[in-house]
Structures are given as structure tokens and as C-alpha cells.
């Protein structure tokens, strides 16, 4: 994949580009991520931090530290969760592939997996073709 991926929040105030394919891709079922997004699970891709650039509206992001060293950024206007920075991994940036324009694949298909399955909604059916781990 060589094309630049573009994405935005719903209201369009915040836009970003990812200029390299993701290096990791997973679905997280932990209670924190579920509450953060209000969803049955959360899907994250990881890209080199330098390759993910906010092209518009970075000043419209609010920051919430969900744990020490884990900073989550969402649009102040529409509430879209957009990126995560982890202090212990300064070369990486997490983003949400569900907000990429055109619903394109973020890359790292060979890494796609479910994590924290031990915390998943008991009634949620998972795609059984993907690897699963109880925790990270």
C-alpha cells in the first residue's frame, strides 16, 4: 500500500493523513476501550508517529489520559475518538481505522487479532477466523 490514507471525525473539523501503512491492527475488548468508545469493542491500528499527521483542526482535539502515559484525543465538537499516544512508545501513534475515508484497510492485515478477549461482552460473537488472546 503506497497511497496516503485520509480520515476525519464526523463533523469534519479534524482531518488527518496516514502516510505509511499500519504496522499493527487489533480489536480490543477491554472494559476501558469499550467505555471510551461506547461500543462492543474498539479497533485500533498503529502507525509510525511521524507518518500520521493532522492536516486540519488539531487545535479542536481534547485530550483524556485514560491511564498514566496513555493520552487519547477526541474531537471537541462531535466527540469522535481519533488517536492515542503512548508515552512508552514514542515512535508510534494509534488511530481508529473505522474513521478512514472510503473505509479503506489500514494495513497490517497479517497482524489483525482480538485482544483482551477475557473481558469481552459475553454475548458478543467474534470472527473466529482471527487469533485471540485473553489479555494484550
Amino acid at each position: 500500500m503506497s497511497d496516503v490514507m485520509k480520515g476525519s471525525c464526523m463533523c469534519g473539523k479534524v482531518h488527518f493523513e496516514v502516510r505509511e501503512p499500519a504496522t499493527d491492527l487489533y480489536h480490543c475488548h477491554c472494559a476501558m476501550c469499550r467505555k471510551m468508545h461506547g461500543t462492543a469493542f474498539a479497533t485500533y491500528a498503529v502507525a509510525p508517529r511521524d507518518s500520521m499527521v493532522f492536516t486540519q483542526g488539531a487545535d479542536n482535539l481534547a485530550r483524556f489520559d485514560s491511564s498514566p502515559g496513555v493520552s487519547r484525543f477526541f474531537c471537541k465538537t462531535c466527540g469522535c475518538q481519533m488517536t492515542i499516544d503512548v508515552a512508552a512508545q514514542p515512535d508510534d501513534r494509534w488511530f481508529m481505522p473505522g474513521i478512514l475515508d472510503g473505509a479503506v484497510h489500514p494495513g497490517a492485515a497479517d497482524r489483525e487479532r482480538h485482544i483482551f478477549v477475557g473481558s469481552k461482552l459475553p454475548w458478543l460473537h467474534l470472527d473466529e477466523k482471527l487469533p485471540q488472546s485473553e489479555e494484550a
Partner: protein
Amino acid sequence: MAGGCLCGAVRFELTAPAHDVYHCHCSICRKLQGALYPTYGVVARTGFRLMKGADNLTTYDSSDVVHRHFCKTCGSHVFEDTDYQPENVWFSVGTLDDGADPGGRATTERHIFWESRTGWYEPGDDLPKVIEFGESKPTT
């Protein structure tokens, strides 16, 4: 059942189970919650009580008739109101404490706006998958 946002500023209680539950794959819902497909429960307004944090909510109108409420502090989308069904409240199922079952799934759980899904993730279930709202199309 009780639920709330991640930071705890916004809390709610349900005194009735959901009477409708669906996973929405439309691009509006995906881009509002930063997910592949948010899951919503619909409950009678009389069965939904906002216990804490009304003043900590930001409302975003995703259309003229749909009003989404998220926590100003952590960004969690907690619930929404619509003008076309004022007697109901939509809540984000992922905000329920302890992964509680919202109820109503046996007869209603389905995937809507299936035509808008990302295409690269398959839920792997046998639930109905419908175009737009299927037969439950609201009056907008």
C-alpha cells in the same frame, strides 16, 4: 442496569431493558465513535435516568433530528435523542457497566446499514444484516 462514560463524570441507570438492539455500520456512526460499528440499545424514555453529569455533556446534532450526547471530559458517546421518537432514548451498549446485556437481543439484534460496512471485518455471526434500517425505517 447502570452505565456511564469512561471517566465517570456521566452516569445513567436503566429501569427497563432495551426493546431494540442493533449494530450500525453507517459512516456517521463509525465517525462519531471511532469504531467499526457502534452498538445501540433503544429504551423507553421512562426507563432511562441520567443520574449524574448532565452539565458535563456536549451535544452534537448528527442530523436535524438526531442529537448525540458525549462526555466533555473523556469523549465517550453515552446516549442520543431523536425528534422522530421522543418517547425513546438510544444508549451506547458499550457504556453499560460490567458488559451487561442490554436485553431485547433475542428478537431484535441485527446489523443495520450493512451496505456501509468497512468490508474488511466480518462479525462472523448469523444475525440479520439489512440495508439501511431494514423494515424498521424511522420517520425522518
